[in-house]
Structure formats: structure tokens, C-alpha cells
């Protein structure tokens, strides 16, 4: 089926395929358009003319001209000839840091190794120079130096190019652009002991073979695979879904917790507001204590008043007593009034004693005279105290007549005063009683006002409010803390959401690409069957060369069903030989790889467009030991190769001991003893 038809079929399929979303269709068609193209190799071959190697492992200085002929290099030991093939690869594509064939590439006596290869392409000579210096690590090997017309141009070595320049020269660029590794591509050109399966087992072997055999769809597949690799989830994306879910749940929990706390805080604040209101009310009541304290001060005032009144009353009572006493006095004066004449008489009778009451003797006239004149006692003769005696005259005291009247008036006056004072005392007592009642009333008011109760309640409220505020503050702090955590989790959630989105996109994209891949791989499988057929026929024909050794009884080759170019050699004893199951040192593996490489290269030689580099390097085809069983077959095969790969330059390196069939090989190969070029001073 013509390529264009295939392409338009695929395009149609992309549009119709349900599993490919519209959003991918255009992209896929673009991929199809850009990738569904055959590789365009340089038509002209690139041929090796000469190689110079210095300080590369065992080789100190080698200069080997290649005369457009198949060449066999041989030496005493394996080192030198292997070093030659390794040096050639180094010169072309540098050192594979991931898989260095040689660890100590630089000869122990040198600081630097140098390789120069000379090539002819379209009759133009090129020199590729590549060197490597050990300065605590290998430097410079990735900076080759290409000189066109080296015989004429003395371009300084220091002018360096890149591997891309070499790739252009040797025609690797189209493959490199499709993502193939130079080392993998170069492994097609070499069968080297110790790394025999480098090409057969390499990751891209199948694709590389596809591409080389013009299976253009593989380019698309490779792009799809590349895109699919891009769709592979990294570790975080893989976790995204689960973690997002977990983080979301956590954020919900935190949010709920915040909500609950906010509710709690709101409740607390509400209670605070309520309590504050109550407290304000109480404060108001307590402020009205002015009223209460007025009452209190009134109480004090009244008590003072009572005290004053009592004092006044006491004074009045005293006055009352005085008046009563005065009345008594006036009355008592009246008493004497009653019996005044009798008293008057008595007074006169006792005024002058007549005789001594003890001895009853009469008082003598002289004693009386003494008494009257001197105031001496008529009884004892002592001077009578002045207050005990008086001088009386016949003249009466003035005003005695009015005494009764005066006394009466005085008595009336006193009685009046007494009544007045009594009234005053009664008034004062009434007043005191009244004030006492007022105090009782005040005490009742005091009790009613419940001032102290208010104060106590206010104190309780104050305490409660303080406590609630503290509680609210704590809640707020907790809210803050949880909010912070919440925000942290939210940021996490956002991050995981983005990652999850990417994951989903990748997965969708992957699904789309896989659908695309399904469309393509059908075509690819078909094409591959074709190539497998080609290779199987070629290998079957080549197997006939092996007539005495391991493959003596080989009956044919089959390719696996797994869409790779893995194969099995069947023998008559129903024995199956699979290259991937053989040990690296097994001589049978050398047979396999010679068979496989030659088959591929031979078929490629038939293709319209293929690699311009026509070099085939074979290291130790007989193994490191003498393989007597297979040696004749190998020699037959090496000879057969020159016929089959007639457009190629075949360079075989082998030990001197393997030169048993030298004469036969000489028919087709130039023999070069490597000892001529190698300093063997190890």
C-alpha cells in the first residue's frame, strides 16, 4: 500500500476514533504528518582511508592505512587488536560515559590519547581528530575536530566541532534526529567480543531496524512513545490523587473544627454581651448607691440628730429637775410658813440655853452677859462659830410680810416653767422617737435596695466576663492556629490539585496517545512482518554457510511474535538456540551475531536509502580461545561476508593464534600484523 494512502487512512482513523478526543486530533495529525516520512540518508558512502592512534591503551603509536579493502589486523595478544576497534569507535562517536568499554583508555605513560581517522566521501578527504586528556576525569572526547582536505589544510586541532558535525559526515544525523543513540547505531557496524549483543539487545534495536528498513510508521510510533513517556506520571503525580483526597478531607475537618470554634466563640461573645448588659444594669443600680448612700448619710445625720436631741433632752430634764427642786424649795419654804409662829417661838426658845443638858445647872447671868457681849458659849465658854450665832434687833426684817405672796408668785412662775420644760422634753422625746422610726425606715430601705447583693452579683459577673473573655481569647488563638494549619493544608490542596489536574491531563493524553498508538501499531506490525520475512530469508540462506560446527544441523530461523526482531535458530534435533539466552563468552553467540549483523547489513545494502557509513568491524571472530569446532565455519562465513557485504569495508581483528586459515582469508582480506604498529612494551 502506498505510503500516502496509509497516511490518509490513519488520518481518517484519528478523526473517527472515539478514544481520541477532539482536542488531540490536530496534534496527532501534525505528528503523523511530520513523522510519517522516510529517512533521507546521504546517498554517498563514507569510506575509511587511514587511522592513527596514539597512547590508546596498549597502542602507543599506530598508523594504519586502509586501502578500500577488507582488512584483517592481527597481533600477539587480544589487547592491541581490540584496542584498535575501540579506538576507531572512540574516534567516530567518542566515549560512552554510561557504558565505557574501556576504563583506563589512556596509555599509562601518556597524559593524553589522540586518534585521527581519514575518510573519503564524494572523493573529498576528511580527517576526524578526537583526543582525550586525563585531568582528574576525561576531558575533550566530545569535542571532535573535523578537517576537510587534511593534506592541504593545516587547521589547528584546537578548533573543535561537535558530535553533530561527525554525525553529518558519517550520515547518522537522520537517525539522531529520530532520537536514536549514536552508540546503538554504531553497534550495528561492530561485532565485538565482550559486547556481542550490543546491537541485538539494545533498547532501540527493533525501532532502529524498522527505521533503517523504511518502516516510516515507526517514526510516528516513536513520537507517540516519546509523548507517552511524557505522559508518565512522576512520583508526586502518582500520589496526587490519594494525597489530594487525604488533604481535602483534612482541610474539611479543619474547616469544620474552625466553624465549631467560631460558633463556640460566638456563643461566648454572646454570653459576654449578655453578661456585660447585666453588669451595666447592676453598675447603674450600684451608681444609684448615691441614693442609698444618701440614705446612709441621712441615717448618720439622724443618729447625730438623735444624739443632739438626747443631749438637749437631758439638759431639759436636768432643768426640769432643777425646776422641780426649785419648786420643792419654794414649797418647803411654804412648809415653814404653815407653822411659822411655832417655829418662831421655837427659835426664840432655843436662841439662848437656860441650863446645861448634862448637869442641868442653870446658866449664870454672867455667862449670859458673856454670850451676849462676846459671843462665848454660855455652856462651855468657848467662842461660838460666827455662823452659829447671830445678833438680833427689835427692828424687823424688811419685806417679810410679802414673803408668802412672793413665794406664791415664784411658785406659779416655776410651775409654768416646769410645764414648759416638760412640754419641751415631751417634744424632744417625740422628735427622738420620730427620728428612730426614720432610722428603722432607712434600714428597711437599705435592705430593700439590696445594694450589697448587687455588688456581689456584679463581682460574680465581672469574674465570669473575665473568664469568658479569656476563653474567647483562647478560642481565637486556637482558631488562628487551626486557620494557619488550614491555610497550609489549603496550599497543599491547591498544589495537589494542580498536580492531580496534570495527572488527569496526562492520563487523558496517555489514553489518547495509546489509542493513536493502537491505530498506528497495526500498520507497524504489518510492516515489521515484511522486514522479519526479509531477514529470515537472508539468515536462512546464510545459515547454509555453517556446515561443520554448532549450526551444522540448523534448519532455519523464526522471529518472535512479540513484534521485535528477536529470533530463534532451529536445529534438526529440535534444539532451539536463542542469542539472548547464551552467555557472552559462548562461541555460539559469536556465530549468532555474525549471522544477525550480516543479515541486517546485507538486507540494508539492498535498500534504496541507507546509512552512508559502510564500515563493519569484527573483533576476535574466533573468540579469545581457539574454537576448533567452529573455526572452519567462521572462516567460511568471513569469506562469505565479503561477498554478501560487497559495498562494505570489513575490518577484522584477531589474534595471531587464530590465523590458521590465514591463507584462505588472504584471498579476500589484506592482512596487517598489528605488531608492526604497536609498541608492545607492557
Amino acid at each position, binding site marked *: 500500500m502506498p505510503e500516502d494512502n496509509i497516511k490518509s487512512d490513519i488520518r481518517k482513523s484519528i478523526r473517527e476514533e472515539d478514544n481520541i478526543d477532539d482536542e488531540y486530533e490536530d496534534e496527532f495529525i501534525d505528528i503523523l504528518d511530520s513523522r510519517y516520512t522516510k529517512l533521507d540518508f546521504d546517498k554517498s558512502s563514507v569510506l575509511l582511508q587511514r587511522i592513527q592512534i596514539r597512547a590508546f591503551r596498549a597502542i602507543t603509536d599506530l598508523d594504519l592505512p586502509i586501502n578500500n579493502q577488507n582488512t584483517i589486523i592481527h597481533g600477539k595478544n587480544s589487547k592491541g587488536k581490540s584496542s584498535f576497534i575501540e579506538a576507531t569507535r572512540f574516534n567516530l562517536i567518542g566515549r560512552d560515559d554510561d557504558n565505557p568499554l574501556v576504563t583506563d583508555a589512556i596509555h599509562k605513560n601518556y597524559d593524553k590519547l589522540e586518534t585521527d581517522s581519514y575518510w573519503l566521501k564524494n572523493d573529498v578527504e576528511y580527517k576526524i581528530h578526537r583526543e582525550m586528556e586525563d585531568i582528574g576525569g576525561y576531558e575533550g572526547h566530545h569535542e571532535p575536530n573535523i578537517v576537510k582536505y587534511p593534506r592541504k589544510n593545516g587547521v589547528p586541532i584546537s578548533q573543535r566541532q561537535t558530535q553533530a558535525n561527525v554525525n553529518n559526515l558519517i550520515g547518522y544525523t537522520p537517525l539522531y534526529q529520530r532520537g536514536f543513540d549514536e552508540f546503538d547505531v554504531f553497534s550495528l557496524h561492530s561485532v565485538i567480543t565482550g559486547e556481542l549483543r550490543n546491537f541485538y539487545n539494545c533498547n532501540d534495536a527493533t525501532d532502529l531496524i524498522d527505521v533503517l528498513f523504511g518502516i516510516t510508521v515507526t517514526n510516528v510510533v516513536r513520537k507517540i512513545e516519546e509523548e507517552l513517556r511524557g505522559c508518565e506520571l512522576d512520583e508526586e503525580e502518582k500520589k496526587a490523587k490519594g494525597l489530594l483526597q487525604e488533604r481535602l478531607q483534612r482541610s474539611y475537618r479543619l474547616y469544620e473544627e474552625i466553624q465549631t470554634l467560631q460558633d463556640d466563640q460566638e456563643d461566648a461573645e454572646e454570653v459576654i454581651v449578655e453578661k456585660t448588659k447585666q453588669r451595666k444594669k447592676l453598675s447603674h443600680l450600684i451608681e444609684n448607691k448615691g441614693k442609698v448612700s444618701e440614705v446612709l448619710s441621712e441615717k448618720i445625720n439622724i443618729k447625730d440628730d438623735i444624739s443632739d436631741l438626747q443631749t438637749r433632752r437631758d439638759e431639759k430634764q436636768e432643768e426640769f429637775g432643777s425646776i422641780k427642786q426649785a419648786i420643792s424649795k419654794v*414649797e418647803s419654804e411654804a*412648809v415653814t410658813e404653815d*407653822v411659822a409662829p411655832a*417655829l418662831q417661838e*421655837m427659835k426664840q426658845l432655843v436662841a439662848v*440655853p437656860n441650863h446645861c*443638858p448634862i448637869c442641868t445647872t442653870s446658866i449664870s447671868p454672867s455667862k449670859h452677859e458673856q454670850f451676849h457681849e462676846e459671843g462665848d458659849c454660855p455652856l462651855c465658854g468657848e467662842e461660838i462659830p460666827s455662823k452659829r450665832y447671830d*445678833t438680833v434687833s427689835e427692828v424687823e426684817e424688811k419685806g417679810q410680810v410679802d414673803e408668802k405672796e412672793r413665794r406664791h408668785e415664784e411658785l406659779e412662775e416655776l410651775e409654768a416653767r416646769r410645764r414648759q420644760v416638760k412640754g419641751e422634753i415631751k417634744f424632744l422625746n417625740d422628735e427622738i422617737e420620730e427620728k428612730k422610726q426614720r432610722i428603722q425606715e432607712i434600714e428597711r430601705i437599705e435592705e430593700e435596695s439590696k445594694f450589697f447583693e448587687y455588688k456581689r452579683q456584679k463581682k460574680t459577673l465581672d469574674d465570669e466576663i473575665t473568664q469568658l473573655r479569656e476563653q474567647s481569647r483562647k478560642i481565637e488563638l486556637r482558631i488562628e492556629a487551626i486557620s494557619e494549619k488550614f491555610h497550609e493544608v489549603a496550599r497543599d490542596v491547591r498544589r495537589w490539585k494542580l498536580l492531580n489536574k496534570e495527572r488527569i491531563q496526562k492520563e487523558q493524553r496517555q489514553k489518547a496517545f495509546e489509542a493513536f498508538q493502537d491505530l498506528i501499531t497495526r500498520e507497524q506490525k504489518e510492516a515489521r512482518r515484511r522486514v522479519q520475512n526479509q531477514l529470515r530469508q537472508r539468515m536462512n540462506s546464510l545459515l547454509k554457510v555453517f556446515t561443520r560446527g554448532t549450526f551444522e544441523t540448523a534448519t532455519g530461523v523464526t522471529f518472535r511474535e512479540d513484534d521485535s526482531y528477536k529470533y530463534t535458530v532451529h536445529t534438526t534435533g529440535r534444539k532451539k538456540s536463542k542469542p539472548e539466552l547464551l552467555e557472552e563468552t559462548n562461541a555460539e553467540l559469536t556465530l549468532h551475531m555474525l549471522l544477525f549483523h550480516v543479515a541486517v547489513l546485507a538486507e540494508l545494502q539492498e535498500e534504496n536509502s541507507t546509512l552512508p557509513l559502510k564500515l563493519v568491524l569484527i573483533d576476535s571472530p574466533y573468540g579469545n580461545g581457539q574454537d576448533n569446532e567452529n573455526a572452519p565455519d567462521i572462516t567460511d562465513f568471513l569469506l562469505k561476508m565479503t561477498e554478501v557485504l560487497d559495498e562494505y569495508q570489513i575490518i577484522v581483528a584477531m589474534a595471531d593464534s587464530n590465523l590458521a586459515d590465514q591463507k584462505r582469508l588472504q584471498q579476500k582480506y589484506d592482512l596487517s600484523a598489528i605488531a608492526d604498529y604497536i609498541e608492545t612494551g607492557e
Partner: protein
Amino acid sequence: MTMTNKETHHKAIERVAEWLELPRNEENQFINLAYDLASVPETNLTHFDERYLQHLEDNVFSDPRLLGFLKQSRINPTVIEQFESKQIPYDEVYQQWNVIEYSINEILDLTMLLKLISQYSDQSEKGLIDSRYRLQKLVYLVNRRLVKQERAERDTAPYDHGKLEKTGFRYTYRKRKSGPYSKNLRDDTYRLSASDLIDEELVEGESTPEITEQHARLEISLGASGRVMIGQFHEMMNNLETGVLSEWESAINTVIEDFGSMSIEELHNYVCDIEDVRNADDRKLLIRGRQVKYDSELWQIGTPQEGLSHA
């Protein structure tokens, strides 16, 4: 007080006549002239009343007829001048003498004591009080009776002696071996005796619990002056009108009625069995003397301290 008679008026004129130291016949002429000039038939004035004396100065001694008589009798012109200028020195003219001064309260005690002695004597068989002992106890019982009587107002602290605070004898009683005894009463008894108001007659061989009566009793009876005085004022002193005195009198009457017929022994038993007396220690105050004084001095109530110290 109403005391008017010719004699008293004469007395004032007589004293002036004596003071002029006139010969007897001239003195009589002066008295008769002055009496005629005075011509005050009825007045309420006593012959010692200053208003009467003033009347004599204004209307009698300054009369020209009297002054003429005095000049005729060759009386010292300075004295005649005193008559003319109505400045007769009555203090010189009138008689003056010393007397033992007693306060009105003391006089009242003496008078009431005399009344008690008189009343008791009247109802007794022998017409007297048979001992100083009985007198002491009778007076004690009178006062004690007054102590036990409630007064309307009780305002004397620390002692409330009932009606005794206002009436009764002012004697302070202490406990002695003989029972309640008052030195004040003894002194007053002496005073009455000294002025012949009572007589004390010793009765040998009989005794009372009284210390002074261990070997002889002293019978107390009214003396000569006492009998005169009781006789003169009998009616007045048995009808006391004033409240306080009538209560005093009534206490005296009741005590005489209740205890008048008791023998000394019965009286002794009775008095010694009175609770206050029985419980009191020797010399312990039983009744404080009345504080109320019926005199012209400022009436005062003693403070508790004063009351005690006084006692």
C-alpha cells in the same frame, strides 16, 4: 403675821425716849406727846416694822411741838437735828442681843421632835417617854416609814429614801449595838433640854440597850418652856396643812399608834428583826439624813459622792 397693839407702838416710842436719857418726868411727857402725835389707831404694822418707824420719823419725831419740847429739855442740838432731818439711828435706839443661830430646818426638826415627844407623852400612861432608847427608835421608825413610802418622782440617786427625801427628820441613822442610833437626834435632844423644852429625869436601877442607859433610864418629858409652847401652838401643830408636813405628822401618828404600847423589850425585838437592821454590819449606814433643806440657802441636791461623804 398680824400683831398690833398699843403697847408695841409705845415700845418704839419708849425706846427712843430711853435713848434720849431724859429725866423720868420729862421722859413720860415725851412719850405722851409722841403717842398723841402718832395717832395711828389701827395699823398692820408692828412696832419694829421699818415702815412704822418711818411713820414715826415723818409724822411724830419731826413735829415742831415735839422738837420744841426737846429744845426746852435742853437736848443736844445735834440730836435735835437728827430728829428734824428724820435720821434717827434706830439701831442705837433699839435693843440688841446675841442668839444661837439655828437654821429653819434645824428649828423644824426641833419643833417636830417636840411634837412627837408631846404626842407620845399624851398617850402614854406616865405622860412621858420612858427612855432615850425609845425616843431613838420611835424617830427611826417614823423615818423608816417615810423611806418605805413611794414618792411620785424618784430622782435621787443613789439612795431612794422615798418620802423621807422630802419630809421627816433630817437625822442620819447608823447601826449600833443598841440598834439604829442617830447622833443628830441626841444633839437635838440636848438642845431641847438646854432650853427647858424637855426635861430628862434619871431613873436609877433600870436599863435599856442604849449605852447611856446601862444603869439608869432617862425619862423624857416636856419641860416648862415646852409645855408653854405646846400649849400655845397645840392647835396649829396638830392640823398641819402643808403636804410634806402632814405626811410627816401622819408618820408620827402611825408610829405612836403602832408602837406606843410596846415594852422596851418588844420594841427592841421588833427593831432588831427589821431586815435592814439585822443584815447590816456595825456602824453601817441605815438611813441617810434628808438632803432637802427648808431654808434660805440654795437648795441643792448632793452628788452620789457628796451624799456618801455627807453620810
